């Protein structure tokens, strides 16, 4: 039995798989893509310029999600903040996945001194708590979304590398892989046919989580005061700024709910894609 054709969670995963849930997830994704591509189609309110006399209004028919401390429409701010939230989280994930994945792959597959050198580098990166690393990088290079994304990505390199390495080692010692190597399979062949397809499961799971984590890390940095300057409307920033207004709880819960729903939908879709394959 080859592991590539084997889809373990396929049978069991469908357990909770309601076609409805997948459809809903698609709808959420479509909405998010729409918000980032053409925000003005979804709201007529100005996300950056407010009427201060209408500040901190609770949700109403006129302002679906209420207004913030400058009287700006929160819904408009969420919609207009989508593009930068999504791209920065993507950048962070891609950096972590690409750099970390390659390092882990090389380390686990090649072994020897490559493993040693990469191992030390990764250990060093791991040894510095992610969040601290991100804080230091952001304060060194400036409080811009792109820097926050890069910092978050760099900080997650080690985690990807570590997981990839352990997955590669696990599968490359599996019986069928060793058998393939003994049967004279070239390393590249073994890597592509056996090691990668088997290792990807955990790594993709982590990458999907990392996407959500990146949005949250950006929010966390904003909480500690390392945010993009106003009037930026990244989701994470909206949550972080909203917590200063506890008597207007919608300022926290509305953007937080958007983050949760988006991350859940992406998670659901990624599972669906893996199982459909």
């Amino acid at each position, binding site marked *: 039995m080859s592991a590539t054709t084997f889809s373990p969670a396929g049978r069991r995963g469908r357990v909770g798989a309601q076609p409805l849930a997948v459809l809903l997830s698609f709808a959420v994704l479509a909405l998010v893509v729409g918000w980032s591509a053409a925000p003005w189609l979804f709201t007529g309110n100005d996300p950056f310029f407010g009427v201060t006399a209408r500040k901190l209004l609770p949700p109403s028919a006129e302002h679906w999600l209420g207004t913030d401390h400058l009287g700006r429409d929160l819904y408009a701010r969420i919609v207009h903040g989508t593009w930068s939230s999504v791209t920065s989280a993507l950048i962070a994930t891609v950096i972590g996945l690409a750099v970390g994945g390659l390092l882990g792959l090389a380390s686990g597959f090649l072994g020897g001194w490559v493993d040693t050198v990469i191992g030390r580098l990764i250990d060093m990166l*791991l040894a510095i708590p992610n969040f601290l690393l991100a804080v230091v990088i952001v304060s060194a290079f400036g409080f811009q979304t792109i820097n926050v994304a890069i910092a978050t990505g760099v900080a997650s390199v*080690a985690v990807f590398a570590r997981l990839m390495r352990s997955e590669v080692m696990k599968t490359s010692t599996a019986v069928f892989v060793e058998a393939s190597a003994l049967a004279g399979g070239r390393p590249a062949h073994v890597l592509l046919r056996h090691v990668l397809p088997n290792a990807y499961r955990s790594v993709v799971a982590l990458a999907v989580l990392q996407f959500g984590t990146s949005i949250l890390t950006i929010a966390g940095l904003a909480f*500690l005061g390392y945010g993009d300057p106003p009037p930026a409307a990244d989701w994470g920033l909206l949550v972080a700024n909203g917590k200063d207004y506890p008597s207007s709880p919608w300022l926290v819960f509305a953007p937080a709910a958007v983050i949760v729903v988006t991350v859940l939908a992406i998670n659901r879709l990624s599972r669906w894609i893996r199982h459909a394959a």
Partner: protein
Amino acid sequence: MSRQSFLPFAARRLGHALVVILLAYSFTFLIISVLPGDPVSNMLLDPENGFTEEEIAPIIAHYGLDRPVLEQWWRAISRFALGDLGISLRASRPVSAMLLEALPSTLVLAGTAMLVALLLALAIAYASQSLPRRWGQGVARVLPALSLSVPSFVIGLVLIQVFAFQLGLFRITDPNGAAATVFAALALGIPVSAQIAEVLIANLDHEAGQEYFAVARARGLRLSQLFARHQLRPSALPVVTMIAVSIGELLGGSLITETIFGRKGVGSLVQSAVVTQDFPVLQSLVSLAAVVFVLVNLAADLLYPLLDPRLRRRAAAGRPA
């Protein structure tokens, strides 16, 4: 693993550990040297004071902050190698004394959080295999993603609002009490538990699909036995990896948790050291984190061969595990 292969292996790992710690120290130094300013001018150039740059120059010189970066690095690292952590530029106290003050509280918090995280992850993972398929398992599978999608400070703020201020279960003025510690550990542990649960579930599913599992099942083993014997054990390897990785997460997360719960600890020390650019404190903390990390990973690497017999053969064959 045989004794002959184990001892050199452990010695090599210890050597690596020292390299990693010195690397982490130097790396932090490098990044900090990119930061604008220095702690002394940050403090003195407050507009309240009306100092000019010329006036504070001798003070900066006193701390050696005007020297070339390489010279500062060499002085710091040679002191560090001899075990001298230096004096905090912010607090005018020995760094070692400040570390000793902060460490116990964070160790208690991180330990409790790890315990909380493991228990939660196991519970969720078990639920994902054993609950009624249609809804129960679905919910269990969504939980990790759900708790990972809420900003951790929101979890902390909600916990503190509800349990400290509404229900009065603990006081913000006594953040090291038992109840306060448990809730802080919950705030810190939930995201970590979600990560462990994700990996655990993915691997449990994998094992559940294996043929031997079906065989065991056909033999009439109960679900809890199946779970413990056939699913959990093989999944332990990636979980141990995740735990080792999560130590950093816990230390990093303590930055936010300690800030919210008003706990004095390594996290809040890091936070104030970053804000005030207190290099000696920051570098010592990073090295401390590195020491903790290296130890935990050493333990994890030593555990791998015990958990997975296949790796035992490989280690015996002389390749680093």
